[in-house]
């Protein structure tokens, strides 16, 4: 039998392809693949030698020439278009016509992006149906456009639970920033949060948050219900350095303290300590005071200096409260527009809280913003004996009442000096392990500490108001829309079609 009869070309091609497939399936069998590819080569060479005349005739045919020519042109055009697109994607110009300027970043963000010292990896855990998805997608694309030091990855925690587990993600719409061994997590795609995280992660020195101790405060190490171990863990994950301080031992608050926290002191804070805290604040320090009702801490002298006061009694709310809970388990939903509260999406649970007061006269140099308020159906109950269900106009203070407030000086500080800030919350239980994982509580605590520890220039990013233009059609409008939008045009088109068809038939 002559070799020419054998379909060598087909055998060679099949062997070559089979070898490649085998290699992709199991790269260990390299010897078998080498034999297959060698045989394929042999078959093809033999084919060309045996059918040389036919191959020559084929290659000299006009159609082969034209085909090769055409192929070359296609390759050339493809190459040109690839280059054009590559250049276009690297140097693009944008016009943001979106209703909310979603793609335009604040000048501060550009400044932060330009001065990023090292690569930052951002992993966003979100699903397409989640409310934050589009926000993350749009903003981070603009961020990446402005800096090549960012890598962004979107992970669907349902489809890739392993990655989500590795990062300890327990809620979607969370983004993890990683750089230089540090990680920071944020839970909202707002520009303030994103840029804040970038700013924090690009700083080599960790900011120090110090908790005051010595007055039976809630302990950072306590893993029980009343402890703050979860809050400590969350703050560490945000990239802060956490420490404790006793002003009975130390004469002053250390200079490297970014935030000083008084987490629910129960025993008296001595006047001496209070004056040390005041010195710290007056020098530009940031203070967070969380104080429960019925405490012997007696912080009045310190707070009165800034015009603040702690209201008597316990807040009772008939409206904003936990459904199964006591009247004093406040589920606060009313927040004032402020950097701390602007991204809060869930209500904050404050079990057993007190209200705050502000004296305009004493605190005239300070900008006072009540952050959270109780509902109009609330009051501060001064007599907690027995079951409380009604307001006693004579003794009780009628709501709505503020139970958290932020204070910052009206006057801008001198160049180079830090600007003091104070946040007072009439409750410390909300940050304890028992309540910390309540979504609103985590956010409120982290936003508050974040705001206090943050660089003040960052906070000047004006948050973008969501475009709120709701439209609810009434029945007449709905019907009109149905007739005009849904039925009118298609029926007219169909009628025209029928008319044309009839006219054609008559021809």
């Amino acid at each position, binding site marked *: 039998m002559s070799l020419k009869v054998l379909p060598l070309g087909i055998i060679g091609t099949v062997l070559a392809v089979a070898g490649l497939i085998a290699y992709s399936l199991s790269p260990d069998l390299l010897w078998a693949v080498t034999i297959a590819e060698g045989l394929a080569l042999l078959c093809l060479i033999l084919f060309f030698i045996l059918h040389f005349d036919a191959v020559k005739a084929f290659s000299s045919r*006009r*159609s082969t020439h*034209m*085909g090769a020519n*055409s192929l070359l042109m*296609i390759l050339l*055009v493809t190459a040109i*278009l690839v280059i*054009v*697109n590559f250049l*276009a*994607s690297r140097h*693009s*110009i*944008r*016009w*943001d*016509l*979106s*209703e*909310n300027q*979603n*793609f335009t970043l604040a000048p501060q963000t550009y400044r932060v992006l330009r001065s990023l010292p090292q690569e930052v990896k951002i992993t966003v855990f979100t699903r397409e149906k989640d*409310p934050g998805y589009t926000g993350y997608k*749009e903003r981070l694309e603009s961020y990446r456009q402005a800096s090549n030091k960012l*890598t*962004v*990855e*979107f992970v669907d925690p349902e489809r890739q639970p392993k990655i989500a587990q590795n990062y300890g993600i327990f809620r979607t719409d969370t983004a993890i920033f990683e750089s230089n061994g540090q990680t920071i997590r944020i839970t909202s795609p707002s520009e303030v949060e994103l840029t804040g995280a970038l700013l924090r992660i690009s700083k080599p020195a960790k900011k120090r948050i110090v908790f005051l101790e010595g007055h039976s405060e809630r302990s950072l190490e306590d893993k029980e219900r009343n402890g703050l171990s979860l809050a400590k863990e969350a703050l560490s994950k945000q990239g802060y350095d956490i420490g404790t301080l006793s002003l009975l031992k130390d004469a002053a608050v250390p200079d490297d303290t970014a935030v000083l926290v008084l987490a629910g002191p129960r025993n008296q804070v001595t006047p001496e300590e209070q004056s040390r805290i005041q010195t710290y604040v007056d020098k530009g320090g940031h203070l967070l005071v969380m104080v429960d009702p019925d405490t012997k801490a007696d912080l009045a002298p310190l707070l009165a200096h800034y015009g603040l006061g702690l209201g008597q009694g316990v807040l009772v709310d008939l409206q904003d409260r936990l459904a199964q809970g006591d009247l004093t388990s406040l589920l606060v*939903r*009313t927040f004032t527009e402020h950097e701390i509260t602007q991204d*809060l*999406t*869930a*209500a904050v649970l404050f079990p057993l809280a007190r209200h705050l007061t502000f004296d305009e006269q004493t605190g005239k140099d300070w900008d006072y913003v009540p952050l959270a308020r109780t509902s109009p159906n609330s009051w501060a109950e001064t007599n907690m004996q027995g079951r409380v269900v009604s307001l006693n106009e004579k003794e009780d203070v009628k709501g709505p009442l503020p139970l958290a407030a932020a204070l910052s000086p009206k006057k801008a500080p001198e160049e180079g000096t830090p600007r003091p800030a104070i946040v007072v919350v009439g409750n410390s239980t909300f940050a304890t392990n028992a309540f910390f994982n309540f979504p609103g509580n985590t956010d409120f605590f982290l936003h508050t500490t974040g705001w206090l520890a943050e660089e003040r220039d960052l906070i000047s990013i004006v948050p973008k108001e*969501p*475009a*709120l*233009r*709701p*439209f*609810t*059609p009434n029945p007449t409008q*709905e019907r*009109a*829309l149905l007739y*005009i*939008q*849904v*039925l009118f*045009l*298609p029926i007219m*088109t*169909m009628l*025209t*079609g*029928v008319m*044309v*068809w009839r006219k*054609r038939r008559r021809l």
Partner: protein
Amino acid sequence: MTPVQAIIAKELRGYFVSPVVYVVGAIFLLIFGFLSYLYVVYAGYQAIQLMQMQGGQAQLNLNDLVFRNLFASMRFVLLIILPILTMRLFAEERKLRTFEFLMTSPIGINEIVAGKFVSVFLVFLSLLGLTGLVPTVLMLFSDFDWNPIWTGYLGMTLLGALFISVGLLASAITENQIVAAFLSFGILLLVWLISGLGALLGDTMLGQIISYVSFMDHYDRLVRGLIDTKDLVYFFSSLAFMLFLTHRVVESTRWK
């Protein structure tokens, strides 16, 4: 009349005397109107729900709840409708044996391809123009921002042009109209689906390239109100590439 104009006129006549364009047009307009109606009603319900919940931070406006969804859904409608409009362009000529006349006529291949493309594009543009009634009617009742709607229409126009060029190529390859329709539908669906692969690969080099090749992200940005030169370059270059390939395929019939 230039040769291109002659081809356009001939094709348009062909379209408007056949019932296909009316049926396709009516269905297109029905789907566009019906979808927008559904989204408006749904947006109304959502507004009521969200207003009852305090602290709802969702964007509550027609641009976001109606038009963005509408334009996003129209991708799929275009994917089905446009291959039906383009399937006959070359396939019918081949079937009716008029293709040889066309090829032996003094009209160049460039002009043939351009004429056929422009004719379907004009049909598509007129359908798109008619859909303008939907935002116009809504404008009477409610308040929204027109800018993202213009960019959405720009996106639909560019996407439609790209789909038509793919349909033209498919129609040039085969003489069977059904095969041509399925071929263009298949190609477009595949390009659509690979964007999912790109998203899965994330921010890697390969992932970025794959996401770039798919029209999804480019169209999405336009729908969301962002005009980016890279998206315009993508649409125009892929359109040019498809027309060039069509030119090559048509010319290949002369090689024999």
